[in-house]
């Protein structure tokens, strides 16, 4: 095999077959994928299925705490998990740029395999395309996932009503700041790691303990503020936050201070927002904190009656302000 991706790796010939065998099947192999059919074949379970897709174009491809491979598994697994589903299968589409080192590609695929194993999902079908040098940026990965929804689970923004409590599963902004710290024109030394992780294990514990969770969502691009504004708009409610309660690690707070960013606008890849009846909030919080991915969980606010559907915050300083959607694009290519 040559050391870098070239156009023949996407050409449909022997070289492409070798790449699929020596990189993709070698690491991702499982009973369904190994059949080598055009599509992954699996039995349909009884009940309801959920399905989601997510494209990943992050730069740089390797960042503190993860890489595009792990991220591409976590991203789609979490989309399924936010419905309360158990993820089962993924498919993966790779767009590779001519000249990309094969050893790096193998690291990425290996990382996908570990993330999938850890999440208990199988990658059962894939696709590889190669584009000319300069037409891509190393590797883009799109994953699609299917999961099964347990009986009785109903998690949806339509369940959100006035008076419910808003919780977050841990410190915000870690992923975005970790990626930013490795950007070419901005490199800074920090101990911040991306929080990229599959959240369905945490969700399973939460749903088991508090079956009437109203809704879940992972605050990825646009961070906490974008996600809460989406919820407020979709549910036709207001949300009031207490800034003191929102967990932010000191390193992230310091980096944001330096860069003029707001942690609430920054992407997360291993955090979730939960909304539940206020009487169940303490029980839910205890369950979340008992899980390794929810140790720093906190109750951060309440759903309110507000015809303007605003997200507002009591500031740590003692005033109030709006927490708005981010305008424009603060951090491009973050996931």
């Amino acid at each position: 095999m040559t050391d870098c991706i070239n156009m023949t790796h996407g050409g449909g010939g022997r070289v492409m077959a070798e790449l699929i065998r020596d990189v993709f099947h070698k690491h991702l192999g499982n009973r369904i994928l190994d059949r080598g059919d055009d599509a992954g074949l699996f039995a349909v379970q009884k009940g309801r299925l959920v399905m989601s897709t997510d494209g990943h174009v992050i730069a740089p491809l390797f960042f503190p705490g993860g890489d595009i491979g792990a991220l591409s598994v976590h991203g789609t697994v979490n989309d399924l998990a936010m419905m309360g589903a158990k993820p089962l299968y993924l498919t993966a589409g790779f767009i590779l740029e001519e000249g990309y080192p094969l050893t790096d590609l193998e690291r990425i695929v290996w990382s996908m395999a570990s993330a999938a194993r850890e999440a208990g999902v199988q990658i059962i079908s894939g696709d590889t395309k190669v584009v000319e040098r300069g037409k891509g940026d190393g590797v883009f990965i799109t994953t699609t996932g299917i999961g099964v929804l347990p009986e009785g689970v109903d998690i949806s923004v339509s369940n959100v009503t006035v008076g419910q409590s808003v919780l977050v599963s841990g410190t915000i902004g870690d992923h975005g700041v970790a990626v930013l710290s490795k950007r070419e024109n901005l490199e800074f030394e920090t101990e911040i790691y991306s929080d990229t992780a599959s959240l369905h294990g945490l969700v399973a514990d939460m749903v088991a303990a508090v079956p009437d969770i109203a809704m879940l969502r992972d605050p990825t691009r646009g961070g906490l503020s974008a996600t809460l504004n989406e919820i407020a708009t979709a549910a036709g409610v207001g949300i009031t936050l207490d800034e003191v309660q929102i967990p932010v690690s000191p390193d992230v707070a310091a980096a944001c201070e330096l860069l003029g960013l707001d942690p609430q606008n920054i992407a997360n890849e291993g955090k979730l927002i939960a909304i539940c009846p206020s009487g169940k909030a303490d029980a839910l919080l205890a369950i979340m904190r008992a899980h390794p991915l929810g140790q720093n969980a906190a109750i951060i606010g309440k759903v309110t009656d507000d015809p303007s559907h605003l997200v507002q915050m009591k500031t740590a300083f003692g005033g109030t302000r709006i927490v708005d959607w981010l305008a424009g694009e603060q951090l491009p290519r973050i996931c």
Partner: protein
Amino acid sequence: MRYITEFRDRALAENLAGRIRRAVQPDRAYHFMEFCGGHTHAIFRYGVQDLMPPNVHFVHGPGCPVCVLPVRRLDDAIELAEKHGVILCTYGDMMRVPGTGRRSLIKAKADGADIRMVYSTLDALKIARENPDRQVVFFAIGFETTTPPTAVAIKMAQAERLTNFTVFCNHVLTPAAIEHVLDAPDGPAQIDGFLGPSHVSAVIGSHPYEAAAQKYQKPVVIAGFEPLDVMQSVLMLIGQVNAGRAEVENQYTRVVTRFGNRKAQALVAEVFTLRDRFEWRGLGSVPQSALQIRDNFADFDAERRFAASQKQSREVKSCECPAVLRGAKKPIECKLFGAVCTPDNPMGACMVSSEGACAAYFSYGRQRAPKDAA
């Protein structure tokens, strides 16, 4: 975070709020202009207004470099990238500001112009070194704070004999703008004092405001950008107003001295000289309010290397940015505010910049009823 959280301490804020409540005379109003957009955003972001008695009002000033740049200069920058085919390096805040016909740098970039967002002048120099066969222009904007780094870049380019690097200079001066605001015939109804610039003053010192304070009998308190800085400065201004004093006081003593950073001043004086006049959005043509590149550095002056075409530059009709920048109107008094003009669809610069008053109102404070925000 050490040296940060101390300046956002809630107990100290409540203490200061109590002292301000006790200091104000109930039968009069206090209108203080915070010159800098940085102050405007601190006031909104931390909810400082909520801690003020009802008769203390903030009037937002023109200290937002992106906002005061007239449309014509932005049109010229877009033209540099589109017509002259240069690599235009700009600070991110400029990207979405609408020019004539609501054309912006970000739209020009989408149409194929080579426009790059940089974090510092050094990034622009690096791009010039890496692209020796292209012309690279740094779109320099800002008050006295961003001027020294531009001077450094020009001197470095000269030392390295970089022949493909120039600066499109739009640096402006704060004291001239303050005097102009006070001179404006249709200026704000009332300004009882100024929260003076913080970072600008770190460079130029506090003494350049002394003449204006004396001449117009308005107190100035140089104020830091943290919310407690703002509150303490308000208390100091109230003290001056109550005593009938009009002096320049310095609240931001941990950074600002009377004569500022002389090394930076010398560097700026070496590279730049005063323009006779410069057009400001909102303030009009202001004499001796901006800098241009000196003759000895002419090779690095984009205005001398690339001729700007004659064109009709126009603001968006009924955008009240100019009046907002003079402190004559509140953002919410603009017909476009929040309806057609939002941060996602800005009609004027004040809604775009992270230092703009309209953006602060919209993003942090639009929940307030008009009477409360006014």
